[in-house]
């Protein structure tokens, strides 16, 4: 995600060069309310360039173990997202290429980010860390759409898919998949399994979930190595 953010940063530097007009603006102009649109775009880019890496770092265990740092950086990210990223994103959404379908996709993403950011902050303030984590996963998942959507655009282009169609697919697919993954990761997977328990096929999945809850990744790796070691020794 950080690599994606770095790539976006590199390609966004042109937005602050007064002499050149980036390809994205060339493609969009003329737009209604051009001054508002250009100001929104620049604020959106700055807010995104700061908040995406910030949110990525905030999701790491390292920072979560340092509550003071986590809290202050979280406040900065929250302010950026709620008062710069989302409002400007909404302005830009109305002139999105691809028409109403793409506008709806950006607005849905903005709504998810704003809703869960507010809920996440409220949860943190009442020390409900489970709800806070779930809400912030949703925020981060939607912010990751900036990277996954661009990557998907390149992937679809490699298959020669029409850019108008790929723009719609490359927006909606990451928005929906990210929301689904965030919900699946945070929510009770066991609740989901309970819901679909009658289906026998789910049983192995239920078992895996239970095993994963008990056994950490590290233990699994160490055990795998200990199983392989005698075989390797025999090979020598």
């Amino acid at each position, binding site marked *: 995600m950080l690599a994606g953010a770095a790539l976006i940063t590199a390609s966004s530097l042109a937005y602050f060069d007064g*002499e*050149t*007009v*980036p390809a*994205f603006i*060339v493609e969009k102009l003329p737009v209604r309310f051009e001054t508002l649109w250009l100001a929104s775009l620049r604020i959106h880019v700055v807010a995104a360039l700061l908040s995406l890496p910030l949110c990525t770092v905030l999701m790491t265990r390292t920072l979560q173990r340092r509550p003071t740092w986590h809290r202050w950086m979280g406040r900065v990210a929250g302010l950026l997202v709620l008062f710069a990223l989302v409002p400007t994103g909404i302005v830009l959404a109305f002139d999105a290429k691809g028409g109403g379908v793409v506008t709806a996709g950006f607005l849905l993403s903005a709504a998810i980010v704003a809703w869960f950011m507010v809920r996440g902050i409220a949860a943190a303030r009442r020390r409900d860390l489970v709800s806070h984590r779930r809400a912030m996963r949703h925020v981060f998942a939607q912010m990751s759409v900036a990277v996954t959507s*661009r990557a998907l655009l390149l992937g679809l282009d490699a298959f020669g898919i029409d*850019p108008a169609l790929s723009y719609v697919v490359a927006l909606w697919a990451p928005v929906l998949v990210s929301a689904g993954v965030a919900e699946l990761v945070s929510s009770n997977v066991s609740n989901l399994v309970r819901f679909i328990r009658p289906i026998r096929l789910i049983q192995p999945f239920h078992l895996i979930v239970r095993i994963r809850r008990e056994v950490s990744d590290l233990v699994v790796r160490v055990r795998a190595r200990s199983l392989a070691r005698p075989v390797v020794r025999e090979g020598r």
Partner: protein
Amino acid sequence: MSACALVLSLVPSFAKADEPSPAAQVQTRVEQGLVKPLADYERSTSRFSRARVPPRERRVRVTQVAASRDASGRAFMAFAVDVRFGTEWRENDLVGCAYTTSGDLFVKRGDAYRPAAFLLGKNVEPVAGVCQSAPTASA
């Protein structure tokens, strides 16, 4: 009579046989002055962006047989650039005009015409009155 025909056939034509037509000249000008630099520019910019991916191919069509004249009397010809992303061509992805004498190229964005350098990332404003045929004077 036959001698006259013989003499006429020996008189060299004033039109040069190898000189391209105005439309062909405009086509070459657009290819050299817009399509090629645009492809180079697109290759040099980051593709990890929401800007449209560059097309696989572009082709130029000159959409006028004879040149028109704008209000200041300068002759121009309209052109269109078609693009291909997959297998199908999409017509009129770009439309504009080329001035036959100066070689200036303009592209249409919205209702206005801007110098073609705009597509190459240059911050240039629309130019009023270009690429618009002057109204014919009525007697």
